[in-house]
């Protein structure tokens, strides 16, 4: 069952605020059924030019199914997909020449070299020069391994080669399905840096799916949340979180007086913390108001920081859907 985000920061509000922005990807009523089971249903995404758009959901939520439909690997059961204002299925070739997609892990021809793989996949879009291939490999740090067979590469190196392949065709939009899945922390960091680079330096729109909340916090500008095949929220990360209640850790002195004062505030929910601090749950927009209130009552505030706000947000809305 689909739910509008209660804050209004979701689909409608977010869309109105960005009416002037160019929509590069729009799905309308997109759905895929396998037998009697709907893997994705009524997906209405809107990705704007320049976004780093995260498609967030737990494993099995329908993220990969949606991405596969956007990349024409799966035929939709319902709905339509528009990319750059063109119908994907009517103008597939033109649209996909401006998009690069990596679904799950990028699998290359293991018996060929990195160079040859890039030459093959690059030439499916346009004529590629040797210099362009070497430059792309250089950007992802694989220039020295250009003529090694891909079967000798680690998972992280293959992921970087996938991004090199994306760079090579200079797409306007890059679609990545769980790009950091299976990588070690260093590999995850490298891929995140590459994603940021694609967006900020190359001006590409990035659409990526993930089940990692930390990834959204680190790279996303806008996001959509999917669970059990249905989209439950969409908007900018800031907007979505802004309207949510969040939990903060608070270190103040004297603690007892502060707790007594805060107990008198109807919009603050207190939770004790065994480490001499306390946790408060408030609307994100009222954080500064609380600090001001405490300072005005001669409470010293040593620290005040949010606790995994996105995780709270995600768990709250997915639990909400489960209850419905």
């Amino acid at each position, binding site marked *: 069952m689909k739910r509008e985000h209660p804050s209004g920061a979701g689909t409608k509000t977010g869309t109105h605020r960005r009416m002037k922005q160019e929509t590069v990807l729009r799905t309308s009523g997109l759905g895929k059924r396998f037998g009697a089971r709907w893997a994705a249903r009524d997906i209405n995404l809107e990705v704007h030019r320049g976004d780093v758009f995260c498609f967030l959901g737990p494993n099995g939520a329908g993220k990969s199914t949606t991405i*596969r439909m956007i*990349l*024409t*690997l*799966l*035929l939709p059961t319902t709905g339509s997909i528009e990319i750059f204002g063109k119908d994907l299925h009517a103008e*597939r*070739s*033109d649209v*996909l*020449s401006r*998009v*690069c*997609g*990596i*679904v*799950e*892990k*990028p*699998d*290359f*021809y*293991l*018996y*060929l070299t990195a160079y*040859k793989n890039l*030459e*093959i*996949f690059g*030439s*499916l*879009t346009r004529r590629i020069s040797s210099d362009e291939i070497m430059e792309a490999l250089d950007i992802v740090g694989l220039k020295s391994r250009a003529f090694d067979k891909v079967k000798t590469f680690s998972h992280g190196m293959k992921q970087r080669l*996938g991004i090199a*392949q994306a760079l090579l065709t200079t797409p306007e939009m890059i679609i990545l399905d769980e790009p950091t899945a299976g990588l070690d922390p260093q590999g995850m960091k490298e891929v995140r840096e590459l994603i940021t680079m694609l967006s900020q330096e190359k001006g590409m729109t990035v659409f990526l799916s993930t089940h990692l909340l930390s990834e959204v916090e680190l790279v996303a500008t806008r996001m959509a949340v999917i669970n059990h095949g249905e989209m439950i929220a969409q908007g900018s990360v800031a907007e979505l979180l802004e309207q949510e209640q969040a939990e903060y850790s608070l270190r103040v002195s004297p603690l007892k007086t502060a707790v007594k004062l805060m107990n008198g505030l109807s919009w603050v929910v207190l939770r004790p913390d065994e480490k001499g601090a306390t946790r408060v749950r408030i609307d994100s927009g009222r954080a500064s108001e609380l600090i001001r209130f405490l300072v005005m009552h001669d409470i010293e505030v040593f620290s005040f920081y949010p606790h995994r706000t996105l995780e709270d947000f995600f768990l709250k809305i997915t639990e909400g859907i489960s209850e419905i």
Partner: protein
Amino acid sequence: MNLFQIEVYKTFSRWRTYIAFGFLALIVILTEVVMKLSAREILERMMRSMQKDFLIFGNVLNGWFITAFIMNSLHLHIPFLITLVAGDIVSSEATSGTVRLLLVRPPSRSAVITAKYLATLFYTAAVVIFLGIMCIMLGLILFGSGDLIMNYATQFRIVFIPETEIPLRMFLAFTAAIWSMAVVASIAFLFSTLAENSIGPIIGTMAVVIVFFVIGNFPFDFFRALTPYLFTTHMNIWQRFLDTPIPWRQIMVSAAILALHCIVLFAIALIVYRRKDIKS
């Protein structure tokens, strides 16, 4: 590189592609060397029946005869070698996951599958041509040249083809052999579009070839009615070019039936692949 060049490059970059060439080279060399060592015995056996009715002299056991002999022995085994690549060319992309990169690029699925099919036919032709060149070259080196005697024992007749006609006849025979192997390749190719591993298409194709051969040889009226339309009935089309006079009408009918098989099999593969959900 265009799609066809890419597919050919990929095909010939894998060692499994060379299994067929290696196997054929080995079998041809072994056969011809053994025949060379046992030439007198083979010749005596050949002549035993024919010398009752004919006076035969000259170099009968020559390179052309050896080529026809090997082709006759191998044309039922080559299909297995063809399926090693034809049964793998589409399904291996699913197994390795490369299909997810390949099909999200601008070329349509129709273009991709057509390029793969053409690459499969190219490989099929390469295998048959390789066999032909190996047989003829080594045969001529070891046994020399001469007129070709074909013994059609079941029809109680023998055919003499003058040495001057043989190169053209052999060229046509090997071209026809490519034609018949293309059907086997098409079956394996269709199975390859349906499967996500390579073993299924290989076993499936061989099962179809064997079952069709069996059906074609069953002495029942129902199966006899089917026999003229089975591709296995026409797989020996190449032999007709080593007959005199060349039975052009039979050849045209066989070629048309084989071509129809190829067209239908590829059309099904195309429809299946265009609508296939890539879940791997």
